[in-house]
């Protein structure tokens, strides 16, 4: 029961945090199901569910369910107290998000009186109880239910994005005219989301029951088919996705490109570079200086400038790499961060203004031309970026499986041992920096041409953090992980307007939570998983005092 109290209080605290930071109110306008259920409600309910689940997982008997209900109830109580507080005392001079509308949202529009309290307590207890009940389901069933709920929420959220893609009758069936998902729509989405994984499970079971029947050739055929579908999807994407989605996917693509570049440095060679934005900036500014007539130094075309820009970043990658060759771990991180900031400060300064445009930046950057045809729409840039990503992906795969890739990974595991085994640390690290920089530079050059201007503000530390965060989310060292990370951390926030404000808040949580609960990432690389497991084992055997302390905490 004590555990239930603790989790309930933590949940209540989290609810206060979400509300006072303004997240809850920001999402009050997002209708998910019909007119009534908004994303704010879903967030609050999800919080209660999580708290209940966590309690239920610790205590696996009937008291656990009771505890889960109690914890949910506590969250409800915390919400009511906050609502009452905001309604009676004007907190706005301190907490900017404590607006008069907040109490209504928190109490599901039932007011801060006895009715609101009763509703919140009941809902909290019920949802907490359900969360505790989730632990009684078998793992696969639980995952299916949770995934289905998440998909339904996602579909509800992405209404505006989906509407140009699906024909009107489908949209009319799924959604209510002004709100979120309609009731039949919700049922359909949930049913589909539940049915597909179950069907796959059943098929997989049948396949494994007479394994011999699925020959190697059939597997190969299936893989080829999957690839063809993937290529067709990617190639036709801008044709049916519309301007907005193409624009978003352009940015996702640029981040994938950067992610692949940093992945070589951080994922393969294990060098944490927190100043990766420097290469992005150098690529973008090289493109700007070389092509923009504004500065009057050069007026090259896009295609002449592109290789020069990439070459510039390679050189700068080597220049930045040289002095930091002997540094490791956190020192390297801080030094590279310093380099990134130096680049930004130099660009921003009046000193270099005649050459780099200063705080106003540079505009009128060249567009790529193909004969008479000028690429200037996001849909057309999409293909350019896609080719860039494909190239970077191919390079990454080939490098990973090559001698130099092995050398990088050896350095990542243990630099001293790698050197003792005859790996040339200098060349290996410099190559990692140079190739990683080239990809960042390519991304920057494409970015400059896409948005047609560069301003120093686009090259802040946040870009570096973005890239590191997406690598961490997807799984450090994993190539598909880069794509997953970029879609989740760059794509989703672009699609959810209200989310922009809280993007970095969520990044912070993602970084911490991933490292604690799933350090290998969402789509991990296999060796990385093994390595982390080994490290955990090692940590256990190495520090008995700490383990004792941890178990004491747990008891």
């Amino acid at each position: 029961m004590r555990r239930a109290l603790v989790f309930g209080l933590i949940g209540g605290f989290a609810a206060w945090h979400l509300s006072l930071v303004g997240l809850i109110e920001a999402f009050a306008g997002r209708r998910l199901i019909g007119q009534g259920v908004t994303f704010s409600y879903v967030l609050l309910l999800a919080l209660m569910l999580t708290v209940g689940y966590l309690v239920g997982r610790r205590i696996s008997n009937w008291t656990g369910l009771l505890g889960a209900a109690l914890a949910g109830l506590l969250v409800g109580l915390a919400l009511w107290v906050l609502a009452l507080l905001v309604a009676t005392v004007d907190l706005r001079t301190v907490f900017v998000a404590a607006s008069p509308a907040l109490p209504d949202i928190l109490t599901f529009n039932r007011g801060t009186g006895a009715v609101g309290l009763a509703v919140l307590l009941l809902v909290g207890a019920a949802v907490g109880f359900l969360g505790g009940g989730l632990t009684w389901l078998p793992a696969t069933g639980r995952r299916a239910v949770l995934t289905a709920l998440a998909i339904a929420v996602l579909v509800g959220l992405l209404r505006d994005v989906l509407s140009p893609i699906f024909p009107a009758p489908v949209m009319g069936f799924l959604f209510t005219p002004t709100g979120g998902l309609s009731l039949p729509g919700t049922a359909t989405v949930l049913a589909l989301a539940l049915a597909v994984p179950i069907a796959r499970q059943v098929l997989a079971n049948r396949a494994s029951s007479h394994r011999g029947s699925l020959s190697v050739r059939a597997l190969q055929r299936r893989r080829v088919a999957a690839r063809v579908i993937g290529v067709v999807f990617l190639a036709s994407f801008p044709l049916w996705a519309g301007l907005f989605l193409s624009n978003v996917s352009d940015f996702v693509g640029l981040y994938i490109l950067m992610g692949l570049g940093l992945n070589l440095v951080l994922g393969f060679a294990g060098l944490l570079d927190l100043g990766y934005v420097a290469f992005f900036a150098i690529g973008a500014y090289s493109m700007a200086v070389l092509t923009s007539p504004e500065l009057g130094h050069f007026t090259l075309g896009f295609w002449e400038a592109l290789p020069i820009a990439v070459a510039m970043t390679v050189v700068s990658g080597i220049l930045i790499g040289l002095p930091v060759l002997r540094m490791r771990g956190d020192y390297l991180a801080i030094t590279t961060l310093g380099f990134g900031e130096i680049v930004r400060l130099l660009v921003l300064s009046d000193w270099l203004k005649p050459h780099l445009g200063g705080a106003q930046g540079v505009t009128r950057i060249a567009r790529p031309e193909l004969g008479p045809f000028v690429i200037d729409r996001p849909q057309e840039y999409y293909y350019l970026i896609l080719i860039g990503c494909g190239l970077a992906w191919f390079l990454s795969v080939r490098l990973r499986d090559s001698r130099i890739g092995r050398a990088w990974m050896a350095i990542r595991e243990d630099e001293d041992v790698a050197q003792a085994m005859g790996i040339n640390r200098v060349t290996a690290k410099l190559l990692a920096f140079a190739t990683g920089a080239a990809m960042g530079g390519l991304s920057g050059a494409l970015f400059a041409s896409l948005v047609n201007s560069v301003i120093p503000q686009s090259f802040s530390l946040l870009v570096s953090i973005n890239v590191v965060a997406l690598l961490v989310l997807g799984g450090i060292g994993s190539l598909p992980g880069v794509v997953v990370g970029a879609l989740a951390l760059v794509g989703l926030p672009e699609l959810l307007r209200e989310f922009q404000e809280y993007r970095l808040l969520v990044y912070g949580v993602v970084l911490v939570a991933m490292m604690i609960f799933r350090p290998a990432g969402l789509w991990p690389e296999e060796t990385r998983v093994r390595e982390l497991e080994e490290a955990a084992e090692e940590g256990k055997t190495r520090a008995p005092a700490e383990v004792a302390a941890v178990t004491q905490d747990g008891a």
Partner: protein
Amino acid sequence: MASAARRLAVLTGGRRIDLTMVIAWTIGALVLVLVLVGSYQTLVAGRYTAGQWFDFIVFGLAQGGIYALIALGYTMVYGVLRMINFAHGEVFMSGAFSAFFLADALARRGFLESRPIISLLALLAFAALVSMTIAVILERIAYRPLRGAPRLVPLITAVGASFFLQYTFRGLFGSGVRVYPTVPLLEGTILGIQIKLIVVFLGALATLGILWAFLTFTRTGLAIRAVAEDMEAAALMGVDVNRAISSTFAVGGAMAGVAGVLYALVFAQVQFFMGFLPGIKAFTSAVLGGIGNLPGAALGGLVLGLVESVGPSLFLDGLGIPAAHQLKDAIAFTILVLILIFRPTGILGERLGSRV
């Protein structure tokens, strides 16, 4: 290339020289020459009066005192856990930002005018308390579960925690700049020096003194030092390691909170992003003095504050760079990079060997 290296090795009496060292030293020599030439030209041109130089130095010392206080938090945590608490700048920010509301309330009721000393002490205590709490929670959530993990892992959570704190404060209190109320007692000058700068510098020194006494004379201080010396041995001697680490974060956090109020007194404004630059610079100070070394951090802070305040006018102006103060932060970063390359052990640091 190889033969050239061999020839070099002969020249240096058989000591191996690798290419990176040669390049690093070239860069270092270049920077040194630039600094000397710039300083010389500025001094010859006589652009600034002695009074102006004096102002730069006083301001640099006050700023350096603040850096020193924050740097101690970095260096203590590093000494105990061998990790860089990247979110320490945000701990500093949270103290300064929270104390703003107390300061505002006090100013409105006229306390800041009628009882300035008590108000100031209350501000310092409040900021120290908030920062301390946040630092301890930070350690508990973001670092303790990962203590055995590879080195990169706590660094990434630190970056995450740093952003979480920043944007929590932004969400809670808004993204605008809040103007700190002025303390009437601290306005004006003595002997041509602004009183608030003197108070800030002395306040920083006093806090450093308190920290020294705490670490030297209390049992908790002893535990912290024991854990910093050797965690396992300390555990075997009956020191509660987790408690010692928590108190390290608590003490470091409190110092950062104090530094936050002092910073706000000098710059008179707070904002959610204000922790980033002082954080990095304090880290630079810690490295400059030798990370893990307490007097080193204090010294490093003062040195960095001075260089940053005097530097742009002294050697950047002389090189003919317009608006040199814009590059003030770039100087700090350059110093950081140069130290890490040439003397990673810092001014007072011991040899860290392969840890760097």
